[in-house]
């Protein structure tokens, strides 16, 4: 009995907070837009009984999904989101790995402080930090002023409202998600393994590629997914830092929902996004499972 209760709690949680909202969004995506409140039809009228329910089901259709395939804006946005997420994840890895490595190699008494510094940005609002980047990257911003003062450039660089700014924003925002899993893998590693590799004739670089990196690969995979998955649907960063050229599905969704008030199409966009995300999420879970097994 206790077991059932114990299992029921997380299931209830998942049903209430994931499955039910998903079904609601799915339902809206199958509806048609309407000038009403809420702005779609049909709505489920439980008072109409069984007959009303069948009526309601009959009114649902896949028109919105068909529409998504007809307008190339959408699949371009999906594709561009994937590309941006992929590139941003890769850059985050390139930046994050050395940081995680240096942290794991630092003196043990320094490590808690360094970890603290990595987590510290979370203590201020994400939005404020993105606005801060607007201040840094704009043409009269801190960065341009500094570069001009140093004499490195004579005209301000246009960074804000370009894809570069989006990349900077994403890498900055998601860097801790990359650093932490890699760090935790590297930190657990026994130093004598590297010594053993060198003892057996590997150079320092060889020892890194043959021992250190393979042993941190679980952390790398985890970090990449933790960055990649939320980045695909990212909305705030592309809309604040990106420009007209920046095409990301999160932004499209927002515009569909708030500007066009087309809830059904917005919901269809969200459903497709979810389906796309299911693949990396499953892969991520597999990786975690493998890591747990290796630990035992």
């Amino acid at each position, binding site marked *: 009995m206790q077991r059932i209760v114990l299992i029921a709690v997380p299931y209830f949680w998942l049903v209430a907070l994931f499955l039910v909202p998903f079904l609601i969004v799915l339902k809206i995506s199958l509806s048609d837009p309407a000038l009403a409140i809420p702005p779609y039809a049909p709505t489920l009228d439980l008072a109409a009984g069984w007959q009303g329910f069948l009526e309601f089901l009959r009114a649902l259709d896949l028109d919105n999904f068909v529409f998504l395939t007809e307008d190339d804006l959408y699949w371009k946005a999906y594709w561009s989101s994937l590309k941006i997420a992929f590139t941003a994840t890769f850059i985050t890895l390139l930046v994050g790995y050395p940081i995680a490595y240096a942290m794991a190699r630092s003196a043990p008494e320094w490590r808690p402080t360094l970890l603290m510094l990595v987590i510290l940005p979370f203590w201020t609002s994400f939005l404020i930090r993105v606005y801060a980047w607007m201040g840094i990257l704009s043409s009269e911003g801190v960065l341009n002023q500094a570069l001009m003062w140093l004499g490195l450039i004579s005209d301000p660089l246009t960074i804000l409202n370009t894809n570069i700014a989006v990349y900077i924003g994403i890498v900055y925002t998601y860097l801790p998600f990359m650093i932490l899993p890699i760090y935790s893998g590297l930190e657990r590693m026994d130093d*004598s393994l590297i*010594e*053993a590799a*060198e003892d*057996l004739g590997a*150079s320092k670089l060889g020892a890194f590629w043959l021992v250190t990196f393979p042993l941190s690969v679980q952390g790398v995979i985890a970090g990449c997914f933790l960055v990649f998955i939320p980045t695909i649907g990212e909305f705030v960063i592309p809309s604040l830092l990106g420009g007209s050229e920046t095409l990301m599905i999160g932004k499209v969704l927002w515009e569909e929902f708030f500007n066009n008030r087309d809830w059904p199409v917005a919901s269809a966009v969200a459903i497709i996004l979810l389906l796309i995300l299911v693949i990396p999420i499953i892969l991520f879970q597999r990786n975690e499972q493998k890591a747990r097994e*290796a630990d035992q």
Partner: protein
Amino acid sequence: MVNSTSFAPWNDPHAKPLIQFKNVTKRFGAFVAIEDLTQDIFAQEFFALLGPSGCGKTTMMRMLAGFETPTQGQILIDGQDMANVPPNKRAVNMMFQSYALFPHLSVWENIAFGLKRDGKSKSEIETRVAEMLRLTRLEKFKSRKPHQISGGQRQRVALARSLAKGPKLLLLDEPLGALDKKLREETQFELMDIQEKTGTTFVIVTHDQEEAMTVASRVAVMDEGRIVQVDTPDKIYEEPNSVYVADFIGDVNLLRGQATARKDGSGDGGISIAWAMEQPDLIASNADQALTNKSVTLALRPEKVAISKERPPEDGPSGINALEGTVIDIGYLGNLSTYHVQLADGTMIKAQATNTRRVARRDISWEDTVWVSFTTTAGVVLEG
């Protein structure tokens, strides 16, 4: 076993040592781990380091392997100063105390790791790894990962991996600790066999004195960063140069007293030791008379102490040093028994006797009054 009568390069002034420690000091911050160490180790030696935990054995090994640099002094291998030679450029392999097996590689790949770094051909690697697997009896486990095998098997993988490259110098940091007695003895003989076949020089750290005694050509006893005595196993055991070594190696009775030169006319030289009130002086005819008037310790191995119910005859060889006491405890070791005998003044003496009879027919038992006796050359007299 290494034949100690023919193989003794340390006695040959012209022999060129393979390893030379020259006034090596290693400090960790203010802590001195190795203190002004000067020691030669010769090619094809089986050199054992023995000492209590934390005395610097691993530190010595790590300096040889190149993971620590001496704070002062010089280490030469084959006459070459090792100061700027990184670990991967040394013809030295080490078996780590923690094994340090690569967890992401199989047993086979672990053993092949060093060979691959040397750029050996595929078939060469296959042959060599197979040979190592056979030697350490790991064939059945070659495709398992280190976490899928037992502690003893892991140890054997570590051993096989360090042996695979056939290094000039092999450093073994407590290589056999996790093996059961039988396997340990077999592996000891295998190590000696490998050593003879390959001519590899071994430096081995061990906590097991018996192991050091069995395998080593020479044993170095360490204490707090210094080597206290280096000698062949039999000499370390029979002729310790200090109370510390006598006490550290094997079981020993230590009787402290004041030395006086033996009166003339008794025939032999040596000293007599006044060591306790109401007890006769102990005679050590093998001791140096230079110790006269110094405080000394007579170190006496239990197996050199005889035990009997009757006092041994005064004119017999054991009659001179005979002490009366009561049996307090008997430690039964199977082939041997150790008798703990308390003398009238409270001193405990351990005496060992071979169990030639069955336990039930033993004539000495608890609370019996007995005599412990030893010849005048049975012990070693040490200063201090």
